[in-house]
């Protein structure tokens, strides 16, 4: 049987050219977003993971995912919120798996006893307090944690946090209040116990 081959060289070249042009435009557009939102992605990841290397990995992975799905984003104004959600979700997954690994490893190790800090400043700077603070933050519900992290970032107003998370400003305020209060309650027990010691 005679083999038939359909060739349209001009059309194929045109398609290739238009594909490459679209690709270049997408990359240019994305690089603008990267310069604007890259630090935000890193800080959100770092706020959840508290480890530079892990945060860098997670933020990079989130930005790559965002790049792959960049065509699907209809409203460019919502890129920040979209990226923050991707980063936060990935960072939580990484933190959970790290916690499981840590639990396995610390079952065999005994924590070292250290003398209690004398003043509030010493208390805040002490690694024990930092660890307690991190644990208290991790125990908060995800929706409160993300609001606390975003609101604590420099230059973020309530309105901006609300725009990033696509929430009403009132909801952001109430979540911020509830989050701080819960953190304070958790840390209060630790501070009281430390002072008693």
């Amino acid at each position, binding site marked *: 049987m005679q083999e038939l081959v359909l060739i349209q060289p001009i059309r194929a070249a045109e398609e290739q050219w238009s594909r490459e042009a679209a690709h270049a435009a997408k990359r240019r557009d994305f690089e603008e977003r990267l310069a604007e939102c890259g630090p935000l992605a890193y800080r959100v990841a770092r*706020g959840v993971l508290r480890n530079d290397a892990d945060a860098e990995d997670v*933020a990079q992975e989130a930005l*790559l995912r965002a790049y792959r799905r960049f065509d699907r984003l209809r409203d460019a104004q919502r890129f920040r919120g979209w990226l923050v959600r991707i980063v936060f979700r990935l960072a939580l997954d990484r933190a959970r798996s790290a916690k499981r690994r840590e639990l396995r490893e610390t079952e065999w190790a005994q924590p070292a006893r250290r003398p209690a800090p004398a003043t509030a400043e010493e208390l805040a700077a002490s690694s024990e307090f930092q660890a307690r603070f991190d644990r208290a933050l991790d125990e908060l519900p995800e929706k409160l944690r993300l609001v606390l992290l975003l609101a604590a970032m*420099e230059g973020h107003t309530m309105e901006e946090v609300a725009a990033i998370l696509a929430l009403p400003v009132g909801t952001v305020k109430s979540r911020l209040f509830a989050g701080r209060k819960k953190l*304070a309650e958790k840390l209060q027990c630790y501070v009281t116990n430390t002072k008693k010691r």
Partner: protein
Amino acid sequence: MLCDKYEEALIGAAASGAALDSSVGEHVSLCAHCQEILAAQQSMFALVDAGLRTRANVAVPGNFGHRVRAAIQMENPQERRRNSAVLAFGSLAAAAALLIAILLAQSLRHGGKDTARSVVAESKLQGSPLPPVHIDNGTNLGPSLPRTLYSSGTVWRTSWLREASLRRKVDPEVLVPQGQEELLVKYMQGIAARKARVTISAGLQQEPEMKPVEVPSIEISELVVTPLPDLSSN
């Protein structure tokens, strides 16, 4: 115990940083215990905010942007490979579908021909007054071509079908009411004769030795302009 009812208000004021209500404010200004609670809560929230700020405002590594750009750069060839694989698969599927369609069409054409032949019942025409006829889409119609003529009631069929099937041509079959066979033959002969004339004239036009018509040169005489006679006097 009297101060317990103010505790929530004091925590709320410390958390929000808002001013105390007048009644709570009055009590706090008089009660040392409540002043201590308010101060402790305020320092606690300050501690919380400081901790949050420390966590949220870390310095971004200098090479972070470059690292992400490099990852995107590496992503592009992978993506292109993925796209080209999808395109290749799509074109292969399209080619396969086209091939199947061609094969299906060919098999249907052959099958259809066989069915048409089987539907027509064949019986030899005994002592027919008609001359043998050959119907080939009206092109080769004449008394000298056909060899036999078959008839079954009102259905007529000529032997050209077998020959035509060998020649792989489209084989038309003609249904004629009984007794009108002769009329049909004459009608078809008339069409064939007309078509033959057209073919001959077309062939003449395509004769290679035919000379082009020579048109003699046209002479144009000099234009003479004469004034119109003055008719105003009439």
